[in-house]
């Protein structure tokens, strides 16, 4: 970096080029009063507090907007400066509530600090204050309030909402004396587009924007947010064994201090009164409180009595790696079966099955941090800002730095505001859209010949299959105008590095694996994979779904994706675990329910899942569960599914345990215990180990998660070098085979992880979704997520504020459809599919196009998955939750 020297108050300083005078001074502990400066934001120079004098220049210069120049001579104080500052400051005080002792920002307030330095003239101030106005406090948002009377108009909140969050909920409204920070239409914040991230509150220098939770933590614990695959680093603040705050870790490479609404405010569930606290045993149809002793003795008796093939377990993408490892080990080594699966089957199974075929490994190829340096980001089938909010921020940051954004989504999602090209394809037509783009790339010779030649195979067969996807066909099937397809194809192929992001919109289809292969074809064809800031990035949904897969919570692989059908793998684990193992692949999530219904599986051990809300065609799940002989559920709350259990075991939540989560970019991060567990709840790994020990198994004498990680290091090569000591401060990204390996930032740099080291292009054909609208069920139903809820909302709906912000389901329909069906906004309707019906309110919005409606699956009052279809992908066995057909019926009044 170029360095510059300059003189400030007689002191010689050397600083990096491009620094402003204010930044240089503050960095070197020279205080210049300032109110509108924030290190994360572009300087705005509006408070006039930071004025300085520069030799050879006239008057006072605003130091927060003036870069340092070589040889500059700066003075930060003089009679003149102090006079001007004082007058300016008095004008601010004139309109400010003088009520410091009652203010929650007392002693953490920039205005107090500046006033202590600059001083005010009380007499003059008294005269100025006579015209002060009073504004009502906006406390509409459940998590924070805005008191205009304390606002000093620094604009930091407005700039934060723009520059950091990209939401632009706020701006200055009105004029002169009446100017206030205002939302659109000067409405209460809750009714604005605000996403309640709280970033503005964190940055407000005074007590104008303040959190409603005012309890101060007595200590803080660094851990990882449990709400999505981004894996933001947080500090949980604890007071009296209660969590009272959560703040982002500014040093974390993942989130750089930023958090979304769930990460910042979603901790209330940990200490919620509804937490399961003791084991429950169903006697005569009702649950009675019991003891661990009694529960264990029944479980041991029942589990010992079933045959291997009659047992299945669901592990959980919400638990730690250590928990997952032990539960799969229990299933394989003690119960003797590979019948273990988890909800990844319902989200990214096609990613694993698809990308393993084409690239050799089914994970995000790049790091989150690399998005900001991409030149083109193509987001397909991912509502990034809602489901992976902080990755959404990285994409917005890339856009600020000049990147082009392409969005392909059946719905006009928030990210479209930042899109250079928006393609609104008909749900289920992604293969066509992507192949259409590839046809353009080939026709215009934009493919990367060198990359195709040296790093891929299967090109010719692939080329042959491309002939079916000319632009006319593509436009006809997808509904996307040709011009946009061409534009997107050109951008992606030429404006490199290009990074591709996808999620459930690609995977949750009966042809999900084909979709994933289409995605990887596109990247391989253009050489946009295996490079920094360029690759294929499936965004994993749950906080530890990557880890649950890595740990072998899947029926076909041992931990570390070592195939159960490969004799060497089986022998290796037999040796480590000291038992004979099942040589056959186990059953998948969806198949397990089929087998339960048929009576072939009799006992189910389910940890941290709620399939009654999350599984497609959930009436099928209910029928199956009723058919079980013995059903054990281990969870933190009584869920809709747990009600069917014979025994419910209370588990510790993420804030009550130690261990690791692996985020979507393969980063293994340390989770730490912040509070002592509620009641008699126990760690999941401990519960499973205890059952194993009591069943007489060896190899379950773990004393801490660290012991389990030691074993993982030995048997999982990609985790070989990831120890607790090494990830104390910052997580490591697998593959990390040895303790001196630095971890892997992006995958496939030299060669692909397929056996021959080449990436493979696949010929593809268009397969229509299984159930398309017809005259009886004329609307297409697709599913989506809300920013405010997580999965089946077992946790988020225990947080009062989130419930206030988003408390009920709405069927989103297009205005034209609404008009045709004669239904109005807010009206209750019955939504019916061939499998079930739900009652729900209507929201009319142009976010969904004509002919398409959408629902989330967050609300148990509106069990969306009673409508969805369990048509599964033949390879990945994922159900088609993104496309089914429905009709809307008016309710009788």
């Amino acid at each position, binding site marked *: 970096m170029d360095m510059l020297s300059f003189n400030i108050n007689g002191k010689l300083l050397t600083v990096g080029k491009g620094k402003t005078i204010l930044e240089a001074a503050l960095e070197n502990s020279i205080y210049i009063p300032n109110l509108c400066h924030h290190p994360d934001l572009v300087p705005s120079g509006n408070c006039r507090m930071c004025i300085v004098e520069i030799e050879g220049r006239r008057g006072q210069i605003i130091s927060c907007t003036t870069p340092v120049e070589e040889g500059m001579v700066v003075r930060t104080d003089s009679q003149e400066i102090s006079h001007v500052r004082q007058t300016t400051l008095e004008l601010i005080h004139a309109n400010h509530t003088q009520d410091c002792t009652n203010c929650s920002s007392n002693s953490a307030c920039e205005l107090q600090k500046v006033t202590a330095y600059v001083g005010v003239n009380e007499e003059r101030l008294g005269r100025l204050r006579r015209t002060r106005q009073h504004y009502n406090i906006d406390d509409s948002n459940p998590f924070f309030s805005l008191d205009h009377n304390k606002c000093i108009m620094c604009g930091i909140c407005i700039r934060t909402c723009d520059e950091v969050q990209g939401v632009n909920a706020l701006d200055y409204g009105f004029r002169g004396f009446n100017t206030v920070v*205002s*939302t659109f239409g*000067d409405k209460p914040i809750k009714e604005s587009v605000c996403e309640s991230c709280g970033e503005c509150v964190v940055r407000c220098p005074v007590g104008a924007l303040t959190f409603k939770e005012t309890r101060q933590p007595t200590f803080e614990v660094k851990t990882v947010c449990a709400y999505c695959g981004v894996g933001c680093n947080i500090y949980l603040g604890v007071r009296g064994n209660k969590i009272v705050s959560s703040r982002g870790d500014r040093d974390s490479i993942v989130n750089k201090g930023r958090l979304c609404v769930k990460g910042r405010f979603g901790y209330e569930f940990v200490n919620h009164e509804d937490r399961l606290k003791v084991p429950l045993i169903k006697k005569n149809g009702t649950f009675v409180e019991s003891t661990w002793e009694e529960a264990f003795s029944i479980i041991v008796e029942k589990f010992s009595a079933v045959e291997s093939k009659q047992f299945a377990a669901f592990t959980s993408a919400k638990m730690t790696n250590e928990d997952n490892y032990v539960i799969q080990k229990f299933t394989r080594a003690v119960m003797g079966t590979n019948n273990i699966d988890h909800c990844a089957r319902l989200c990214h199974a096609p990613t694993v099955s698809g990308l393993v075929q084409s690239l050799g490994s089914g994970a995000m190829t790049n790091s989150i941090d690399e998005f900001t340096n991409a030149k083109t980001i193509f987001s397909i089938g991912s509502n990034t800002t809602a489901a992976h909010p902080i990755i959404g921020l990285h994409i917005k940051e890339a856009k600020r730095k000049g990147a082009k954004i392409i969005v392909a989504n059946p719905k006009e999602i928030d990210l479209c505001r930042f899109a250079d090209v928006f393609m609104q394809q008909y749900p289920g037509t992604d293969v066509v859209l992507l192949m259409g783009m590839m046809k353009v790339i080939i026709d215009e010779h934009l493919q990367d010949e060198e990359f195709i030649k040296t790093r891929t195979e299967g090109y010719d067969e692939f080329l042959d299959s491309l002939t079916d996807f000319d632009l006319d066909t593509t436009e006809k099937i997808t509904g996307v105008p040709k011009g946009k397809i061409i534009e997107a194809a050109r951008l992606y192929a030429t404006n490199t590095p290009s990074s591709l992001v996808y999620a459930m919109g690609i995977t949750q289809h009966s042809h999900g694996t084909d979709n994933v292969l289409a995605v990887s074809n596109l990247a391989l064809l253009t050489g946009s994979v295996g490079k920094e800031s360029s690759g294929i990035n499936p965004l994993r949904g749950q906080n530890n779904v990557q880890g649950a897969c890595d740990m072998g919570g899947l029926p076909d692989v041992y931990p570390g994706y070592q195939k159960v059908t490969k004799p060497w793998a089986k022998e290796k684990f037999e040796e480590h675990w000291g038992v004979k193992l099942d040589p056959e692949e186990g059953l998948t999530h969806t198949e397990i329910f089929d087998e339960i219904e048929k009576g072939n599986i009799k006992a189910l051990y389910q940890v941290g899942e709620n399939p009654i809300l999350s599984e497609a065609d959930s009436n099928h799940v209910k029928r199956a569960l009723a058919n079980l002989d013995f059903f054990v559920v281990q969870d933190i709350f009584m869920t809709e599914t747990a009600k069917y259990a014979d025994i419910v075991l209370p588990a510790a939540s993420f804030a009550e345990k130690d261990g690791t989560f692996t985020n979507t970019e393969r980063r293994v991060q340390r989770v730490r215990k912040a509070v002592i567990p509620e009641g008699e709840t126990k760690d999941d790994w401990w519960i499973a180990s205890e059952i194993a020990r009591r069943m007489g198994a060896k190899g379950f004498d773990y004393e801490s998660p660290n012991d389990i990680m030691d074993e993982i290091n030995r048997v999982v090569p990609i985790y070989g070098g990831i120890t607790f000591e090494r990830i104390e401060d910052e997580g490591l990204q697998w593959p990390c085979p040895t303790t001196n390996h630095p971890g892997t930032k992006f995958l496939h740099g030299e060669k692909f992880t397929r056996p021959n080291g080449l990436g493979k292009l696949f010929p593809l054909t268009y397969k229509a979704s299984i159930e398309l609208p017809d005259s009886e069920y004329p609307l297409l139903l697709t599913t989506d997520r809300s920013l405010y809820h997580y999965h089946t909302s077992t946790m988020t709906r225990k947080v009062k504020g989130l419930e206030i912000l988003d408390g009920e389901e709405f069927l989103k329909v297009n205005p034209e459809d609404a008009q045709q069906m004669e239904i109005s906004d807010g009206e209750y309707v019955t939504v019916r599919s061939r499998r079930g019906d739900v009652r729900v309110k209507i929201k009319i919005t142009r976010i969904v196009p004509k002919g398409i409606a959408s629902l989330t699956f967050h609300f148990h009052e509106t069990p969306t998955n009673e409508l969805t279809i369990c048509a599964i992908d033949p390879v990945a066995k994922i159900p088609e939750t993104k496309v089914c057909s429905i009709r809307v019926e008016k309710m009788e009044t």
Partner: protein
Amino acid sequence: MYQIDNLVKDLVKQHGRAREALMPILQGVVAQHNYLTDEAMVEVAKELDLSAAEVYGTASFYTFLDTEPRGKYVIRVCKTITCAMKGKNEIIEVLQEMLRINVGETTLNDKFTILETNCIGWCHKAPAILINDTPYTDLTREKLVKIIKEYMHQ
């Protein structure tokens, strides 16, 4: 709603999408529609790739860009010192009597709104009012009654 869409689209065609186009577009909407509805502002924001809050910030800055429902004829009575001294109160009395509404209100038939405004630059011919864009000056009770009657019959 769709009407506003088209109006905004036409105005965008005329003035372009640059930030500078915001003012003329908002003025264009007000000229056609008397005031800026939420839908109109959201639509303008979308077309110009601005945030809705910014459009509102601009609209609320200018008194002549109303964001609340207004009548077809917006009568703005100058309240600044010269007009105030030369009989502004009487002007307001006459208007309130004739239209049976208070300052800040709109008649039930959505035809008239009475507002006060800061100086409109007609001090030398005070008292003065504006009806939409047309100034009426040197007003007396009789003159005003006549003017308003004409508007009533339009």
